[in-house]
């Protein structure tokens, strides 16, 4: 059909090599910007240009690192703490929380300690600060209102996300909590470990 835009193939794009991959740098300003944007969201979002995403190239990782992210005894019920995983690149911000109720993938005696990536798997809205103790949920996303159930592997409660919130897999060693993997693709990336 003539109405389909078909661009000619121009040579063979190279398969990406790991050395080339920018995982980006943590963009705290963007995160705060998103969270506080509220009413003006629709207009500020389009003007946000973060060339910084590709500015710094972190070390490439080919398997999930085992990273200590906190101590079980330090966690208070319904008080999320932040950490970064699987790297310090864009969209690595995550949350560790003791829900006080058993949850899928939960660790600890009550199986109630879980961790999730903080970015909405719809269009990248920042969910930090949206934890709700009464429903054990994250959201509503400030962009389009998606909500996630943290007791059920981050499944979408209501909204638009294309998948569950990526769950950070945890292991407990003594009192130390380690992040050891991520279940689901992190927003913004095409590969969790390569950015």
């Amino acid at each position, binding site marked *: 059909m003539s109405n389909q835009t078909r661009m000619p193939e121009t040579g063979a794009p190279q398969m*990406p090599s790991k050395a080339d991959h920018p995982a980006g740098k943590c963009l705290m300003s963007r995160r705060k910007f998103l969270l506080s944007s509220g009413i003006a969201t629709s207009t500020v979002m389009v003007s946000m240009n973060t060339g910084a995403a590709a500015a710094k190239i972190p070390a490439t990782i080919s398997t999930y690192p085992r990273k200590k992210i906190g101590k079980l005894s330090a966690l208070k019920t319904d008080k999320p703490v932040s950490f970064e995983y699987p790297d310090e690149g864009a969209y690595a911000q995550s949350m560790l929380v003791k829900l006080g109720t058993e949850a899928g993938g939960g660790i600890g005696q009550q199986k109630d300690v879980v961790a999730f990536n903080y970015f909405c798997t719809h269009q990248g809205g920042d969910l930090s600060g949206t934890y709700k103790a009464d429903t054990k949920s994250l959201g509503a996303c400030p962009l389009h209102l998606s909500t996630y159930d943290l007791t059920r592997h981050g*499944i979408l409660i209501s909204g638009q996300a294309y998948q569950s919130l990526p769950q950070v897999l945890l292991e407990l060693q003594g009192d130390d909590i380690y992040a050891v993997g991520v279940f689901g693709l992190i927003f913004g990336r095409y590969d969790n470990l390569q950015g």
Partner: protein
Amino acid sequence: MSTPYYIPETDVPLPPKGADVITTACDYCIVACGYKVYRWPVAGGRNGGPKAGDNAFKADFPVDPLGPWVAPNQHNIVLHDGKPHHVVIIPDKDTKFVNTDGDSSLRGGCIAQKCYNPQTPTRDRLKSPMMRIYGILQPVPWDFALDVAAEVGNYVRSAHGANAFGVKTFSYQYIENTYAITKYALRHVNTANFTFHDTPSDVSSTPGFRDAGFDNFGPAYEDWMNAETLLVCGTDPYETKTILWTQWIMKGIQNGQKCIMMNPRRTAGVAYAEKNGGLWLDINLGTDLLVVNAIARIIAENGWQDAEWIKDWVNNKWGSSSGFGQGTRNTPWQWRTTWGKFQTKGYEDWKKWLLSQDEFKPENAAKIAGIDVQKIRTAAEWMAKPNNGKRPKTSIMIEKGFYWSNNTGNTQAISALAIIVGAGGRPGQVVGRAGGHQRGGQRGGKYPRNKSPMKVPGRRRRALDTDTWTMSGHTRFAHVIGTTWIQSMCGSQQLAKRFEELTVANPHQVRSYDKQDIIDTLKKRADSGGMVVVNQDIYLVDPIGNRYADIIFPAATWGEDTFMRANGERRLRLYNKFYDAPGEAKPDWWIIAELAKRMGFDGFDWKNSNDVAEESARFSRGSRKDFNMIKVAAHREGKTLHQKLGEFGTNGIQGPVYMEDDGTLVGTKRLHDTTRKLPETGPAAGNVFNKKLTHFNSQTGRCNLQKSPWSLFSDYWEWMTPKGNELWCTSGRTNERWQSGFDDRRRPYVVQRWPDNYVEMHPDDAAARGIENGDMLMVYSDRVPSLKETTLGVEGSDYSFSGQMKAGNVELTRAAVTGVAMVTRHIKKGIIFMDFLHTSQPANSLEGRIVDWISGNYNYKMGVAKVKKIGESPYKNTFRSMSFAPRDII
């Protein structure tokens, strides 16, 4: 009841620079967001890279929020020209309309998963015609299936009459297909035994709008945003047409719009509106009319009506009566007014009636509706009270929770309220439907109303009720196209029983290898009072296809041929073909053409879908999606209609389309636009200026202000009202699932989210029955009312629920549906809510098979049921599937 757990991917291939980019729009809800398909060959392994220069998005990864991210559910592998290709399908980040910001719902966002891929749960797409031989649906060649269907169909027409030949079809699945189907069914078979997927007879969904003169889809999406006060009745647009909410209404609320939501459920959109200064009218089922008229009464009593608008745009006595004599004497408008229950002589006459009805006093209405009376007063003030001499710009949106509760009454009442607040014909001051499915209907023939044996009081004919007709055994050949007939209609389980009797329980079953023998057997089936069923669809639907059909035609669908369709603001787009249909599946227009030719009908020699579209163009003239001038422009430029529409990409163009003298095409932002100036010279050349461009759809072009008596419905409402431990039982869509779940049941992630039908109930109702989240429930009733025969009556008063009860024409039947308990704060006490169309747990079974006496529609949203726990679902104590968290978290 095991659940196929969704195992998420942690990487996704990116489209390389140079990938094919093809525009389309979403296949699902009314909004029809714009999408782009990125397609590249699997062979060669040339995937894109994360640098802007190495991928088709020209974007660095990780991308920014709102950027062209690809979730793994947005990727698939399909055959294109017989070769495997990757496709990535994401919302168009460059579109200027509809899903501005490149937004999408979960439904459309994961539309790549719709594409046929034998490695995914889509592997059971219908790929070959089939015929039930020795009780088993077996693949047969197209010629074989078509020959048998054509000969048996023609025999039924000649031996039993055209009305024995039933056609039940989708109304929306692309202009080319609906044109072909209606040309075949209405123009050629010419049967009155015809209707669309969502109604037992071919009638208007919103009789009150029709009488008032409102088009269902007049408004532009920007009007919903620009209203200062917006009343939304019977829907949460966030749940059911998500992007209309997030890109339009939500932005209006952020700009200070006062949003009033009338709905017994407090889902996310309602909660968002409330949190941002809006209002929730948490009414009991079926009490909408009372609340709407109570609001109107406060406005009238305080003189807050838009007097200037009423003076210019409301019919007086003479205007109201001028509908007499239009066309045939069978127009629904005429017999409704003849009945004397609705017609007024204008505003003062209407006001006199309104004030004389005690049930519309705010206190009385609030009591029956179960809401705080102050909410009614607040709504009236927001909608109409002038502030420093300035009226608020008010708009009104309705949808099925409203118009399928008290079809005629509610739509009459809301039309009157719209008129007196000045909504209907100005920017930001509009009235319309929100919409369900997209608008792809284009008639290729006229409904033969005079062949219908069903009547309303007097001698006026009503469109044939295909359910009642089939229950009575009059349908001998049923051609069912792309609809879940049975579960989609009220009293589903009684319908299923009758289908069983008429088809597989009939002694004449195909047990032969010989074509003529097969044909003779099916003819004998029809002659014996049984029914032959042909089912045309993309999947085998249970039970209509799986259990009852004799012949199956496999259809091609979205992305498998090039089609046209309009959305809820009449925006026409081209939906391009981008991959090969599975097996021998063919587009519906092709199937219809091949069948029609075999039946001896002429005019079906189309070579491709553009041929059909071009033929249909002239029949669209004067309609809300008039696209005829696109064809005229295309031919001027040596293009096809499809090519020309395709040039508009995902932006499309809003119908009706007008052509300037220089050949430029101009769309229509809104209908009934009293502020629009058309060229004084009138329509030149092929252009049509329909009245609806600048006036209303009535005889005079002004609105009819009509009465909406509660008494026409109150006997049914009172009879239905829960008795003993019954609860009101209603149903609707949920954000994450589309229609019958025909695609969603094949998406592991959505299956994990919603594995079974659910039963939302208030914590108090649950506690009283010992029910907890995750319990498996039996939802049942032993008083589902069903009409035995078509409405029986002579006098006007016979046409009521009480009248039919008195005549012995109402049978009380039983129904039972299972579901998973979801105990939640977001539903009003006394009401349960289920998904409206789970094929294996059909909520419509519990809704009365009683049509609205005036319109002929079902009131699908009005049922009652008892609920009891029968055990625990597997989701109660495991964590992979479902969520019992409320839908009102903001």
